[in-house]
């Protein structure tokens, strides 16, 4: 077993649809220590959510793990039965989803939905569970917790609902919290509040967080490490400083360039990344980003580059970088 809290090695995952095999994850490796915050950044379809869901066994039908190993908190996830999964879900690892409006069941009270997970994984009785639920609501900054316990989801605002989701996720003090685009559906000001809350709770409870988002602004403030994903692969990985101040992969550079700046002049155009993502039904043999890359070389179209490491954290998979590094080595 691995010494990491999360150790994913060369994961490959595909969706076997009527149209064919959609290769959603193509050799993804991630590791995370206790208490660390990892950000996974990428556009829609890059595989960031799929990676996180596979950790909890929440991969939607018809998805299947095709290769690699996933270790979490001493469990070999590949080998877990559904029954064993149920023991760790909501308990050792929790997840909060993107849309708080639809993630809560509209016909049951908030109290019921929080107590449900407490009663499931702990030995507490009903009163104790209720007390704990109230405690959790206070923890996540919801006022009048007594009143809220009896209310229904539609009576709360979006921001409050997301706080409730966080309360449910933290109820059993998990070692890992996965946050799948937790603030995308919320107002910017609420966004800031929720992120602040998550950092506070991380400090208090010492849990690790995997933050999935397409928003670079979110990862800048929160994460220790960042993985940039594209078309089912990690194209660059490093510390937050590495990624923001020293990006090595063209895609990462493109993402950073495309962020609209407050100090940009009025007539300055936004800089998108040209081209469209590839079809995952027929992924190319080479680098998936090749068609959109300004540095694309012939070899990029044929095969995937090996990993180029820059220090013990920062790495990328890119022929340009590989070439430059080999030239540097040769020059020594």
């Amino acid at each position, binding site marked *: 077993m691995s010494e990491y809290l999360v150790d994913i090695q060369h994961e490959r995952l595909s969706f076997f649809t009527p149209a064919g095999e959609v290769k959603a994850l193509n050799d993804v490796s991630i590791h995370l220590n206790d208490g660390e915050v990892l950000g996974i950044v990428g556009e829609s379809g890059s595989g960031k959510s799929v990676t996180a869901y596979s950790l909890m066994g929440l991969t939607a039908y018809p998805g299947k793990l095709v290769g690699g190993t996933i270790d979490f908190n001493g469990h070999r996830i590949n080998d877990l039965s559904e029954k064993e999964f149920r023991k760790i879900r909501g308990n050792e690892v929790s997840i909060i*989803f993107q849309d708080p409006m*639809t*993630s809560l*069941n*509209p016909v*049951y009270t908030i109290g019921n939905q929080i107590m449900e997970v407490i009663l499931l994984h702990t030995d507490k009785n009903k009163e104790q569970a209720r007390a704990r639920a109230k405690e959790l609501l206070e923890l996540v900054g919801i006022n009048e917790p007594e009143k809220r316990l009896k209310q*229904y989801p539609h*009576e709360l605002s979006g921001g409050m609902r997301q706080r409730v989701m966080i309360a449910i996720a933290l109820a059993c003090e998990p070692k890992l919290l996965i946050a799948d685009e937790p603030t995308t559906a919320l107002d910017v000001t609420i966004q800031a509040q929720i992120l602040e809350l998550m950092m506070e709770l991380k400090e208090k409870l010492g849990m690790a967080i995997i933050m999935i988002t397409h928003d670079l602004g979110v990862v800048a403030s929160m994460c220790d490490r960042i993985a940039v994903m594209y078309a089912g692969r990690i194209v660059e990985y490093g510390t937050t400083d590495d990624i923001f101040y020293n990006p090595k992969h063209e895609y990462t550079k493109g993402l950073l360039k495309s962020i609209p700046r407050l100090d940009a002049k009025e007539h300055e155009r936004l800089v998108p990344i040209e081209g469209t993502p590839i079809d995952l039904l027929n992924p190319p043999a080479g680098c998936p980003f090749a068609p959109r890359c300004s540095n694309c070389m012939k070899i990029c179209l044929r095969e995937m580059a090996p990993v180029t490491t820059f220090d013990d954290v920062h790495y990328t998979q890119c022929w340009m970088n590989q070439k430059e590094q080999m030239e540097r080595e040769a020059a020594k």
Partner: protein
Amino acid sequence: MGKYILKRIALAFVTIWAVATITFFLMNLVPGGPFLSEKAISPAATKALEAKYGLDKPMAERYFTYISDAAHGDFGDSLKQRGRTVMDIIATKFPVSAKLGGMAVVLALCVGVPLGVLAAYKRGTFIDSLFSVIATCGIAVPGFVICTLLLYVFGVKLQWLPTLGLKSAQSYIMPVVALAAYPTSYIMRLMRSSMLDVLGQDYMRTAKAKGLSQKVSLFKHALRNAILPVITYVGPMLAYTLTGSFVTEKIFTIPGLGGEFIKAINGRDYTMIMGTTIFLATIMIVMNVIVDIVYKLVDPRIKLK
């Protein structure tokens, strides 16, 4: 909420009144009055009958008299069944139909709901396809075909079940099953699609992420949401069993209100036709209102509106 109830009840009253009015004027449209095709009666006798039934008074007066009488439950005497009032006949025959209809509704719910859930759960499998076929047949095949089919197979050929009347417990089986066929199929399909809809919702994913077992997810989280559209259907279903009874009672010779209504039509018993129409319409409309209100109570999303 209170406002909604009042609005709903008001609408119901207006509709009942509309039905009564339409019924009255339609019946009086028939030229020559109700005694036109009676075997030769002398003009004097006709006049006397007309006076007795108040048919010699002006239309407007007759209308108001009729409506106010009807509001008190007085629909006059039956024109064909001497010596009995319409209300009297309704009071004896309706409980029979109600009993059959009630049993059919219960059967439809008890069979339709679980089968619909099962079909959704086993989506895409053979069971799902099988249920889908059965349900489609149940909806498409007209009531009289189902009745006669059952009658022929179980009553005439196999002779397992009685075909006439309601004397024994077994004689209830075929009419109730025949009456329940359409609603059961409808509920099966409704429940299935509602369930599939619910199973695709985000909160079902949350339930799984919490570590809940499939059983708990299905019965606690999914069912409670999926059953709501079925509750809305109960109103129309009750209305259906009342009209379905016309055919069922005719074929199985059951002494219920449906059969009585058909008899009245074929025998041109005007007062009976009018009274039964208004009575049945009132029942249907009232049932719909009750179901609507119950639905609003059951769905917490609507509580506060």
